[in-house]
């Protein structure tokens, strides 16, 4: 089993490349696309697109299924969610802290006013 740190690193690596992000963006707009459909907007050749799809599939960001001679590529959202979760950990930490900072400072302000300062 791949640990979550490795998965995360793989997701980020897959997302670094602009062509791969564009492929994902295309897949977001439709439910599944063939490889030639995906290659259409790009100036690069089919084998290059295939290579990008390999990277995306390895990161778990897309799935490929074959039916006859057509390969259908679909988006898989789970790795994205995990990467977001990593960022949200920080948000939760600070959000909780700042809530407490707010109530503490407000009680200090009330105290200062009671003392007429």
């Amino acid at each position, binding site marked *: 089993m791949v640990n979550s740190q*490795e998965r995360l*690193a793989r997701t980020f690596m897959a997302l*670094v490349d602009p062509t791969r992000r564009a492929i994902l963006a295309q897949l977001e707009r439709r439910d599944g696309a063939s490889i030639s459909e995906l290659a259409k907007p790009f100036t690069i050749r089919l084998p290059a697109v295939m290579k990008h799809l390999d990277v995306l599939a390895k990161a778990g960001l897309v799935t490929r299924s074959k039916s006859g001679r057509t390969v259908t590529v679909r988006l898989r959202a789970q790795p994205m969610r995990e990467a977001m979760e*990593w*960022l949200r950990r920080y948000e939760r930490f600070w959000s*909780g*802290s700042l*809530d*407490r900072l707010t109530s503490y400072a407000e009680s200090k*302000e009330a105290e200062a006013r009671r003392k007429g300062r």
Partner: protein
Amino acid sequence: MTSLTLVRRIRARPQIVFDAVTTAEGIAHWWGPDAGPVLVAESDPRVGGRYRVRFLRMLDSTEYESSGEFLEIVPPERVVMSWRWKGGVPDPGESRVEITLKTVPEGTELTFVHSQLRDEEASRSHEEGWSGALDKLEAYLAAGTKVVGPTSHHQSEGR
């Protein structure tokens, strides 16, 4: 670089908020993600001075410690500090916390920015460009389809 921005409006004057942010007594009252207590709070609020906070997180009953150095101190407006985990989590390296206080009619508007965030794995492998990917990932999820801007920030507003 990935960063997190949070904004809070606080019904207290900037000087009170500033003291709450920089003094050991203040820090002991709020640092940490949940109601878990702060166990140790030390602070030497001057440029080059250090702080250290040890707290218990209720969620997993685990002690965490973060520490760093004050890089800029302008009372009662601005504090910049370096920030680093110690214990509890694998060391993801040093990041930067910037707190800016602005006077508003109800008291203070606090803008909090935690920047230069890196994940453990990436900082070990020194893979280039991945942190930009995080920003893009975020923009991707936020926008639904488009992945364009190199510096979209995680923003959430409170109060």
